[in-house]
């Protein structure tokens, strides 16, 4: 207890508080701007912390990471342009809410859900790091494959009105995710001799192209139609209601809670990360929707489902890092370098060797959550002014954001051309009833699924019956079968509506 109090004292020193606040501000900017990814910002920020004390340094980096996750929702909701790939799923309901004149309500729910998910995951980290890390250690390739198969079954749940087209979109995403170097043999696959394709189709380019650029093409078409018919040209209707009331909280809270649990799970299991966590949470919560819920058409629950999960991942990904030295996400892996820079080796011994520092980081993380709420709440009114900008200005600026985002990911125009190509593909898919949502799930889950599957085949020596030796994997496979049966039952499949 004495160590904890001393650690709390460290966390409340002006230097540590300023570091957290600075990290939160930087993280918010990184999150709002598409293409400035969280790992890239962390990598740039690590050298800045050279001269800081260990606790101030880690607090600064934690602030960057947390706020970038929360900030990513802002552009997703207002411009349909995810600031981070993990915010892509927030577009599905956030942007329709903004289009309905509920941008501020969507931003508020995104902020509150983010802070809630983050804070609960931090408390779980503080209380349950050791036992949960033991669970993470049991997640081998066979278990990961089973988790991925379980995640892929949700493609069926999100297929929309036409199940075959939804599945085709999902499998197309899976297929395009295989472009690049083979994960096992490192031989090129469908790269056409282009070195730029060796790393595959860039994820940021795919999410920005499929969501933001596609949306700008649709908006441009609508803009031209309206201009032709002489209709009003406002991008967003005037907001008449900006408040979040008690019935809204009561309605959204269970979804936030479920999403936080899913985010924590995705953080603890190394490799899943925030993007898969957010998509998975959206899919599961949409499947659990009650009558009256309007997922995909602008529902506050959809925003809470993705944001709570996204923000719960980082604190949870520190659980295996602190307990066994295994980072649960890319951001956590970069934090390892920061720890080592300041003479701390994450792992089982860290609680014995540096208890004051670890407890100090815990307290700093909670402080960061509070700062995140304050900065987000103040900035929210400013960000919401975007809804007043006319569409003729929004389209060129969002296209520019798309280009910047795709360019910065790899610093070449290849990613930008990929973004444009996928944007056009997304436009055609939307026009003919092929779900972009399921495409992105397949694309995001694809690489990890393939890698895990092939590792699992090696581990089991191609003997499927050896799955019986992996109870966790068996559990997920049974859950996948049950989910598949539920999703594919005749009443769940609507009659096809062709375009």
């Amino acid at each position, binding site marked *: 207890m004495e160590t904890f109090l001393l650690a709390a004292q460290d966390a409340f020193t002006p230097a540590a508080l300023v570091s957290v606040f600075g990290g939160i501000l930087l993280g918010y900017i990184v999150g709002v701007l598409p293409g400035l990814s969280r790992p890239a910002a962390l990598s740039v920020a690590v050298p800045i912390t050279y001269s800081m004390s260990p606790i101030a340094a880690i607090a600064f980096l934690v602030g960057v990471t947390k706020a970038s996750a929360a900030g990513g929702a802002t552009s997703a909701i207002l411009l349909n342009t995810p600031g981070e790939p993990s915010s892509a799923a927030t577009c599905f309901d956030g942007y329709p809410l903004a289009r309905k004149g509920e941008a501020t309500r969507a931003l508020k729910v995104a902020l509150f859900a983010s802070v809630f998910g983050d804070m609960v995951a931090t408390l779980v980290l503080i209380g349950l790091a050791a036992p949960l890390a033991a669970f993470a250690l049991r997640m081998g390739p066979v278990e990961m494959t089973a988790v991925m198969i379980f995640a892929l079954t949700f493609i069926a749940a999100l297929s929309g009105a036409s199940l075959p087209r939804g599945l085709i979109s999902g499998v197309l995403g899976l297929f395009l995710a295989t472009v690049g170097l083979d994960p096992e043999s490192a031989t090129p696959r469908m790269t056409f001799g282009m070195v730029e394709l060796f790393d595959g189709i860039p994820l940021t380019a795919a999410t920005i192209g499929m969501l933001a650029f596609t949306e700008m093409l649709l908006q441009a078409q609508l803009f031209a139609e309206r201009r032709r018919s002489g209709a009003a040209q406002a991008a967003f209707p005037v907001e008449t209601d900006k408040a979040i009331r008690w019935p809204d909280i009561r309605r959204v809270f269970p979804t936030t809670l479920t999403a936080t649990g899913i985010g924590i799970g995705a953080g603890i299991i190394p490799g899943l990360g925030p993007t898969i966590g957010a998509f998975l949470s959206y899919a599961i919560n949409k499947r659990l929707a009650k009558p009256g819920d309007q997922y995909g058409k602008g529902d506050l629950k959809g925003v809470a489902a993705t944001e709570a999960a996204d923000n719960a991942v980082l604190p949870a990904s520190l659980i295996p890092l602190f307990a066994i030295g295994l980072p649960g996400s890319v951001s956590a892996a970069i934090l390892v370098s920061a720890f080592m820079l300041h003479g701390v080796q994450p792992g089982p011994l860290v609680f014995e060797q540096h208890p004051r520092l670890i407890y100090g980081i815990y307290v700093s993380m909670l402080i960061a959550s509070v700062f995140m709420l304050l900065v987000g709440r103040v900035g929210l009114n400013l960000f919401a002014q975007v809804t007043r900008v006319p569409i003729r200005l929004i389209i*060129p600026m969002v296209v520019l954001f798309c280009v910047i985002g795709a360019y910065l990911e790899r610093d070449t125009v290849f990613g930008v051309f990929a973004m444009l190509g996928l944007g056009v593909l997304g436009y055609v898919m939307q026009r003919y009833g092929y779900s972009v949502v399921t495409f992105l799930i397949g694309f995001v889950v694809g690489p990890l699924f393939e890698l895990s599957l092939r590792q699992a085949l090696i581990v089991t020596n191609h003997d499927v019956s050896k799955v019986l030796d992996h109870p966790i994997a068996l559990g997920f496979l049974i859950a996948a079968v049950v989910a598949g049966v539920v999703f594919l039952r005749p009443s769940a499949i609507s009659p096809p509506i062709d375009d």
Partner: protein
Amino acid sequence: MTDPTDGDAVRRPRPLVRPLVEFAIVGGASLFVIFYLIPNETMATANWGLSPRMVPTVSAALILGLAAINLVAGLLRPATVAAAQSLHGLPTVVALILASVVGVAVVDRAGLIVGGTVLSLLVSLSIGERHPLRLLGVGATSLALLYLVDWSGL
């Protein structure tokens, strides 16, 4: 983002030729991938389960199968179709795509700051913006934003 598959449809009789054309495009593309693209662009190994071709081939075959199911469903089920989507505004979409491609080509040649500014101006022009002051505003804002990105070092 709205998912059009969830939208309400204005119903009218469904032409039978549409599912056939859709199958011809999706199925044809799958066959092209299975029999031409993958064999020519991906190395094969003796062990099928660990082959780099395994997941792409299975994916393409699945798409082919699903396209066939979609065709059968389209031909047999008493479905109705959404009203033909408006072609109005399509020239603007094409103009926007072309403006973006040209803008990105300028980014490639002249760098992100100059190219990005040109891109935003071309996009504005492609959607019909002709007001000089507004064009100036878009250009100046883009330039300032791009300088900020460049200055930040990210």
